[in-house]
């Protein structure tokens, strides 16, 4: 199970790109395309391979002026789903 101090990152072979035809940000990985909404773009934009999940949640809580206890479960669930799809990897802090 993922911990709050795990550091998520996009592994080799997974990248975001702007889809000019559909005019949306997408996440591309092995045999998978995920259309990203605003929240997805915001979370993935914070994956720098240094910040842990709890730091990412704090940063987003400030940017969106929303309580941490609302933001953090969303961030954890979003990243956990991508980990299970193999689109995000995590390493211990």
């Amino acid at each position, binding site marked *: 199970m993922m911990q709050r101090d795990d550091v998520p990152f996009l*592994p*080799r*072979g*997974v*990248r975001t*790109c702007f*889809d000019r*035809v*559909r005019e949306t940000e*997408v996440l*591309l*990985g*092995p*045999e998978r*395309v995920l259309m990203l909404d605003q929240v997805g773009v915001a979370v993935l934009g914070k994956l720098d391979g240094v910040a842990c999940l709890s730091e990412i949640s704090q940063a987003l809580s400030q940017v969106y002026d929303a309580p941490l206890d609302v933001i953090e479960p969303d961030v954890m669930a979003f990243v956990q789903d991508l*980990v*299970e*799809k*193999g689109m995000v990897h995590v390493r211990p802090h």
Partner: protein
Amino acid sequence: MSDRIDPPMAMLAELTHRCPLACPYCSNPTELTGKERELSTEAWADVFRQAAALGVLQLHLSGGEPASRRDLVELVAAAREAGLYTNLITSGIGLTERRLKELDAAGLDHVQLSLQGVTAAMADRIGGYKGGFDRKMHVAEVIADIGFPLTLNAVMHRANLDDLEATIRMAQHLGARRIEIACVQFQGWALINRAQLQPSRAQVDVAKAAVAKAVEELRGALVIDFVPPDYYSDFPKACMNGWGSTGLNVTPDGTVLPCHAAETIPHLNFEKVQDLPLSEIWYNSPAFNAYRGTDWMPELCQTCDRRDIDFGGCRCQAMAVLGNAAAPDPVCRKSEGRAVLDVLLEQDVHEIAAPEYVYRR
């Protein structure tokens, strides 16, 4: 049905039908295209640019064996330049360390390595190519050293389905992020060899339980995608996610198909990239519009609550088993065609001594 036609997400480019292996379940057509009719490097590069402009995000470079193309590195570079996520579907034969490094430098995103068996004896018998397994294992090591993300694509059937757990262990051993456990679908060469390839119900039950267990145990460590043997299913697969909805396939000679087996439907006429722009073919060709959406469907599918789940199943399977591409997929328990499929299945699993494989050559 929605009148709007969405742009395609994925394109399968069958660069060549040439292949050192001769797997008896090959998805290529039984009539293979020769080297002299293959598209040139520049023609493929143009198709990649057109595909990206049309909305394709993912490109699968396949064959045959794509490494049989001398210009593979150039083709990968062209695909990346066009902005496509580029996946190489290969047996590994023909890929040296030097060539893999060149593919890395050209920007190849992902490798899908086929697996014919977990032992040299099995793999080389299925591939009809002695020494192929050892070379594949070497290629897998180089892939891991370079760091390419790897999917292992294990095609399963009667002879190797009992090795399922060992197959999953091999994916872990090779450092794969993902394994596709694909039970043979009966099209092309596999249809000729159906009696030898069809697993038994007991094998299928054991395999399904093993997959379910592995999915739980390896969650987060290995992505497992399972394509079940559909003669044993109650409802059809959502073939191609619906005809002309998501993906397209370009054959070695530039013919554009809604799926790799579509040419088995004799009354359809398929356009070539040499004659028409790709977008014109996708949006307007009669072949792509033939089974698009739901208007073409028989009453049974039109009124079915699974209409938008499986889209009536596979047109090529309806053609192959029933001789009518517009019939419901005969896998469907609700359809009249199911009785025909059940007779075939009964014959397959009660064959006393299955004949030898007919190899794809």
